[in-house]
């Protein structure tokens, strides 16, 4: 129950689609979504595979709770070997695609091989077809979604697709569903593009069932009451969204600014949640139209925004004078503080373009920031940028590059390499602010020490969503710790990483963890699924998933040397704010972390650890 207990395997090379029963022994050990799909992936794919080769696979996967009425239970993930990182990738998305997939009767869809010409997968419950995508190849995510709904004369179809950036090999392309929800990081959309797979379109009307309805409704209602009664999930997130962090992180001196050259941005207030709520001069309306929920979500942190109609980006382009997915904190940071641009409308426009053309605003903004440093230090000039004055703070440069990157054209195509390859190309690899080739998100690890370790050890490259110790170190959730010290952070990072892997394997959103502990989650899973799901079992799943991902990366060629941070963060002290004089103390935390994990000093899980986790 809760699981559909069925997998769809699509071989794009042969054009075949067939059903398989879900491996329930694995479901008992890996639960679902991130964990279970990763298990399938590592069993089936050579870790050394080129991410863009037909031998790489791509899995779209739900969790057991996906499609139920548990709060936030609409999530799905895309698991593959990342085009940006060459590491295991698992990118999670909300919206309404995951629940539709479960309602069509599938826990996951495994894509193999490469189609001879562009195709999209159309699923109407048991009716599964690979169809010609000739008419939508070369079009945006938004046009693709509209075309599919019109072509099939069904406005209730849910679509996950790639934009032109994914077709053209931009390294950080996303898979976007419901116009502005994205499996965003590590280049999962790039892998999809390499398979000539433009979109997956779904209708599912079979329904989702759980094991014990009475217990389930009781556990779900209790969970919802915790979320609505909590000041963060019940008030803060719906009212201000994730963007409320902009001023906090700036105040604490942990807002990476201008490619991490400093840790506070003088323009932070202008691009914050508070600024999004202020009426603008031209029409008296704020940037923020309203908040919005993903499927079954009782938090509703999503932002729906408009751009000022008089702004240079949209004044002559009415198609962008509409409401759409607005800025989230990580995107606003990357498009703003990382580039020194404090123009809220320019950031919102760039964010629209990221959604429309299907690429990750974090990696994009951070890479533009790196390119700006290359430009300002004279390494590249206007000849390289195609005439773009690539100075920090230039809003027009940002939005022009956003459009170019979306089409894989001009200097935007070079931005599409990601910061690692771009900075290497111009002889300055040290300017790429990344781990395992993936750009940092919005927290400077000199001012939030635990995040340095979380970034360095994240299995998908630098990421805030693999162990969000910001919650404890800055926000006091569940308990406040000192962000400026390294002591105790190894244990904190491990605890966050393991718990997060369990949340990510269930089909729910990690934002519930601002209010829920696994004590709140376990009864919901246990009532929905066979298997006796306790907190301990979930924690063991979380740790098992973490080690499984690690094993894949080790086999792919990553070593302890890759659990590292750029020199700027471990050698150059912060110049201002509370972290002034501090570098990240990764060398102090890492050995302790390996030991806590039960890994060798070289970062390899010991046999004892593997046995303990039944790996």
């Amino acid at each position, binding site marked *: 129950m809760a699981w559909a207990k069925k997998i769809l395997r699509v071989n794009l090379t042969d054009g075949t689609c067939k059903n398989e029963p879900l491996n329930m022994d694995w479901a008992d050990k890996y639960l679902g979504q991130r964990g279970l799909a990763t298990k399938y992936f590592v069993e089936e794919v050579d870790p050394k595979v080129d991410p863009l080769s037909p031998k790489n696979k791509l899995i779209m996967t739900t969790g057991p709770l996906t499609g139920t009425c548990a709060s936030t239970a609409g999530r799905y993930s895309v698991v593959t070997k990342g085009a940006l990182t060459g590491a295991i990738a698992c990118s999670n998305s909300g919206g309404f695609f995951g629940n539709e997939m479960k309602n069509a009767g599938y826990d996951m869809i495994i894509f193999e091989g490469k189609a001879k010409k562009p195709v999209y997968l159309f699923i109407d419950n048991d009716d599964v077809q690979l169809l010609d995508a000739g008419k939508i190849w070369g079009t945006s995510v938004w046009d693709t979604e509209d075309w599919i709904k019109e072509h099939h004369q069904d406005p209730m179809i849910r679509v996950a697709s790639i934009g032109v950036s994914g077709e053209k090999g931009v390294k950080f392309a996303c898979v976007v569903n419901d116009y502005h929800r994205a499996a965003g990081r590590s280049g999962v959309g790039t892998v999809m593009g390499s398979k000539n797979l433009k979109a997956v379109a779904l209708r599912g009307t079979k329904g989702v069932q759980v094991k014990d309805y009475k217990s389930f409704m009781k556990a779900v209602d209790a969970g919802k009451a915790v979320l609505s009664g909590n000041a963060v999930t019940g008030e803060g997130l719906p009212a201000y969204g994730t963007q409320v962090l902009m001023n906090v992180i700036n105040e604490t001196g942990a807002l990476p600014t201008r490619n991490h050259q400093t840790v506070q941005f003088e323009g932070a207030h202008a691009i914050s949640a508070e600024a999004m709520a202020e009426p603008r001069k031209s029409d008296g309306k704020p940037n923020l139209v309203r908040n919005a929920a993903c499927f*079954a979500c009782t938090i509703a942190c999503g932002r729906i925004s408009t751009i000022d109609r008089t702004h240079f980006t949209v004044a002559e382009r009415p198609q962008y004078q509409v409401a759409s997915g607005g800025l989230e904190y990580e995107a606003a940071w990357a498009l703003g503080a990382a580039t020194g641009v404090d123009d809220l409308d320019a950031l919102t426009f760039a964010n629209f373009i990221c959604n429309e053309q299907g690429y990750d605003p974090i990696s994009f903004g951070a890479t533009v920031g790196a390119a700006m440093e290359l430009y300002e230090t004279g390494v590249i000039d206007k000849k390289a940028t195609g005439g773009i004055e690539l100075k920090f703070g230039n809003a027009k440069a940002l939005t022009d590059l956003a459009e170019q990157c979306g089409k894989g054209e001009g200097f935007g195509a070079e931005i599409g390499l990601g910061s690692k390859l771009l900075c290497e190309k111009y002889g300055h690899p040290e300017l790429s602010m990344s781990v395992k080739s993936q750009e940092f998100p919005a927290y400077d690890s000199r001012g939030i020490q635990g995040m340095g370790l979380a970034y360095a050890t994240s299995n998908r490259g630098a990421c805030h969503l693999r162990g969000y110790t910001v919650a404890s170190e800055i926000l006091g959730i569940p308990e406040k710790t000192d962000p400026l010290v390294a002591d105790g952070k190894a244990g904190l990072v491990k605890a966050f990483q393991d718990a997060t892997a369990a949340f990510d394997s269930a089909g729910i959103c990690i934002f519930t963890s601002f209010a829920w502990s696994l004590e709140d989650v376990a009864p919901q899973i246990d009532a929905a699924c066979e298997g006796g799901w306790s907190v301990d079992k979930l924690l063991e799943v979380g740790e098992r998933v973490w080690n499984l991902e690690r094993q894949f990366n080790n086999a792919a060629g990553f070593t302890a040397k890759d659990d590292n941070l750029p020199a700027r963060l471990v050698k150059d002290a912060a110049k201002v704010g509370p972290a002034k004089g501090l570098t990240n103390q990764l060398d102090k935390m890492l050995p302790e972390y390996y030991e806590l994990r039960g890994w060798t000093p070289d970062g390899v899980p010991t046999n004892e650890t593997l046995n303990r986790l039944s790996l």
Partner: protein
Amino acid sequence: MQKSLVIIPSKCTGCLQCELACSYDNESMFNPAKSRIKIFDFHDKGRFVPYTCTQCDEAWCMKACPVDAISLDAATGAKVVSDELCVGCKVCTIACPFGTVNYNADTGKVIKCDLCGGDPECAKACPTEAIVYVDANWTGLDKMRAWAEKTDAGQQASA
């Protein structure tokens, strides 16, 4: 006291908890495709609007039914479809001006909101009170209160 469902679109976040609750009550599973209430997402406008049967007094669906399969629940005012009597002719779906009676191809019957016998699950499941179940004679009460609060407010403050 008879009650009515009142919908306040400005409060709706589009989460579909109402559709989940409706399908659970009626179909014993979670299946928004079988919900009697639907949320409409007007994406370009940033608007979400829940929509379902308003239980017309002189119900077109009830009058159009050739086999009297739709009847009045006197306690709630709901117009209720009898699965035993319904022959799936769909005339009611044509008669309803609002589209809130729909055919279920899996069962060969039509489905519509029956107010859950007087305790609508959608209203209970809505996390933002965008769907409420209130006195049928005073569905405008909250709006009146909101406007009443503004009336003479300036004079009060200066008095």
